[in-house]
């Protein structure tokens, strides 16, 4: 056991920190924060930031050099994430592609597919959204009904029909990756195929949906006789469930949720606690005292998540895989995120509900609204608990 980073890793951290300090949009430099990425202007500003990172080689540090990365290891990726959140850099507009689709492309994609999709994904030129949920298929994802049929005219073309919903970034994204039922008679997990579809294809209609904060963070996407070449099937026909579950593991586990997000938020929570405890004009002097235990809980949980990630990363670097424990990760980070933000709002007291002059929530309120989604997306926490109960504790299926 050795919980120190190597001198090379320390140098990597210093380089990342230096570059982010010099380049990340920030209020002090007058370049940030960027407008919300769920507005047309904010989306473009976030794409421009992705481009800046890509050109300096920081967009996808862990990818091979030929796809725009540095070929860095898992530890370097975690270090970069720590520095990224430390710098308060913008939310990654390309995260659905970079963190969810890319690992699947590396595992299941053909050489041609990797060559076609990864570079524009890394540069922010093409932003991806996810097309999994449907109006009648949420927690029960295998109930999806959107279908794929072979074109009667051209054998190497598929025709997609149906409806996807809750597609994050769907209002502005260029591409969607999604599951469609290609075999209506097969067992329901077996007749699915994973497709990559341009959002500007004829027959695709996007209806943005306003979220709790009033912005169109997700969308419904309708497919009406949308033609897709067979080259845009990811993995084998009928293997979509297995391919998709590989992506789901990424979403629940390591890749989307780096611990830096929580440790940084927890550090800011301690600052907020200190300010609240010292506030002279506070009419409610007991607030900090009442919140103290939850502040400590939030800080310790965030640290526990970081350490658990390091524990897992050590195993992954040694060649182990991620199993159903990814579902435990998801339960823990989503609840930690909520604890951090509900505690912050409690510390803010009557200021918590206030919006700024432009009608935008404060960072803590915004973070709270975002944290509320955590236990719902990427498979609800109730589904995750079932997965852990059955696959880790060995309890019988219901």
């Amino acid at each position, binding site marked *: 056991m050795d919980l120190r*980073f190597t001198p090379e890793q320390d140098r990597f951290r210093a380089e990342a920190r230096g570059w982010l300090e010099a380049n990340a949009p920030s209020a002090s430099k007058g370049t940030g924060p960027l407008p919300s990425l769920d507005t047309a202007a904010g989306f473009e500003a976030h794409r421009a930031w992705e481009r800046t990172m890509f050109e300096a080689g920081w967009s996808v540090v862990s990818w091979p050099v030929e796809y725009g990365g540095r070929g860095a290891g898992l*530890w370097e990726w975690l270090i970069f994430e720590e520095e990224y959140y430390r710098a308060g850099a913008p939310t990654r507009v390309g995260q659905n592609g970079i963190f969810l689709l890319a690992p699947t492309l590396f595992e299941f994609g053909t050489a041609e597919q990797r060559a076609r999709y990864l570079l524009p994904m890394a540069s922010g030129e093409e932003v991806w959204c996810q097309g999994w949920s449907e109006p009648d298929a949420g927690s029960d994802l295998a109930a999806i009904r959107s279908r794929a049929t072979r074109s009667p005219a051209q054998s190497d073309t598929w025709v997609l029909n149906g409806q996807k919903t809750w597609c994050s970034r769907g209002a502005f994204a260029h591409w969607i990756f999604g599951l469609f039922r290609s075999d209506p008679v097969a067992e329901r997990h077996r007749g699915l195929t994973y497709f990559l579809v341009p959002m500007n294809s004829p027959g695709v209609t996007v209806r943005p949906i306003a979220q709790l904060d009033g912005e169109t963070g997700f969308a419904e996407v309708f497919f009406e006789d949308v033609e897709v070449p067979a080259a845009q099937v990811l993995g084998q026909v009928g293997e979509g469930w297995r391919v998709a579950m590989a992506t789901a593991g990424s979403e629940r586990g390591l890749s989307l949720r780096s611990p830096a997000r929580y440790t940084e938020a927890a550090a800011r929570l*301690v600052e907020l606690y200190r300010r609240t405890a010292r506030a002279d004009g506070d009419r409610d002097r007991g607030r900090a005292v009442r919140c103290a235990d939850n502040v*400590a809980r939030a800080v*310790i949980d965030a640290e526990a998540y970081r350490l658990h990630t390091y524990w897992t990363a050590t195993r992954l670097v040694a060649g182990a895989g991620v199993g159903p424990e990814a579902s435990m990760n998801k339960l823990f980070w989503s609840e930690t995120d909520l604890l951090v933000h509900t505690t912050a709002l409690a510390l803010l007291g009557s200021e918590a509900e206030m919006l700024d002059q432009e009608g935008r929530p404060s960072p803590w309120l915004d973070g709270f609204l975002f944290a509320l989604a955590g236990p719902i997306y990427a498979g609800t926490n109730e589904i995750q608990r079932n997965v*852990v*109960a059955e696959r880790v*504790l060995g*309890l*019988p299926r219901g």
Partner: protein
Amino acid sequence: MQFGFDEHQLEFRAQLRAFAEKECPPGALREAWASPLGWSRPRYEALAEMGVVGLTVPEEHGGMGLGLVDLVGLLEEAGRAGLPEPLVETTALGVPVLVQAPGAQGEVLRARWLEAVATGAAAIAVGTASMPAVPGAQGADLLLLEREGELHAVPAAGVVLTPRPVLDGSRRLAKVDWEPSPATLVVSGFEAEGFVTALEDRAAMGTGAVLVGVADRLISMAALYAGQRSQFGKPIGSFQAVKHHLVNALVRVEFARPVVYRAAWSLSEGDPDARLHASMAKAMASEAATVAARTALQVHGAIGYTWEHDLHLWMKRAWALAAAWGDAAAHRARVLEILVGRRA
């Protein structure tokens, strides 16, 4: 960065698990409850023979010469098995005090006690000034006792014990009456403060490790029972209400574990944040064990509420150790105090 145990550490741990399964089944635990000491001398000697008791004793005194990172997984196994022998007190707390004791007194203490610990002939108990009664005092051959800014090493012959019965029948607490003398003095003043602080931190980490093992055992017992017990024509473990209770407890344990391991590393490396890390460990472990105990009882239902069922052997250990050396809330308060003080 290498956050895992090496082959030797894993192998030692597996050995201890096999030993405990054979030598300390629930029936043996019940015998310990009924015995005067609350634990078994022969089993303690067997643990010493394996190298567990003398793990932290330097090799020149007949020990393994290993550290807290080597010990932490063994303490977790001890908790899992419910081993009542005083490993935290002797191996994690007492031995390092003897190893670091300064001056001629240190030489005398090492010569007198370290080999005796390594062979299983001696057990140690520790009582700090804030403790109303000392755990394991009855079976201890040497007591390390704090009073008025001094740390003393007092042989069993020099103390008068008034037993204080407690709920967990494998714990023997006693009020200790004793007279400090120049012959018993180990350290005083600023130095004693450092010794006691380090003792508390090792106790938080070591007790946390035992608690993680206890919690793990409680959840395993409940999961096994939930798979066997049928109601409404199916195993109760197939109901989501039961599953979700158990998973919530499991998640607390799963995330407490690396925090405890990290505390062991920080303490053995002398990391400046070691006290912070030890408090994080105890806060997480106490909470995990408390949740696991509550959950395991609820999943078992009425059968878990009986004396006959083994569940209470671990449940009572969880309650006692969750409160010992500072409960979860006390350690959370310390964590916040350290963090707020640090950047002010």
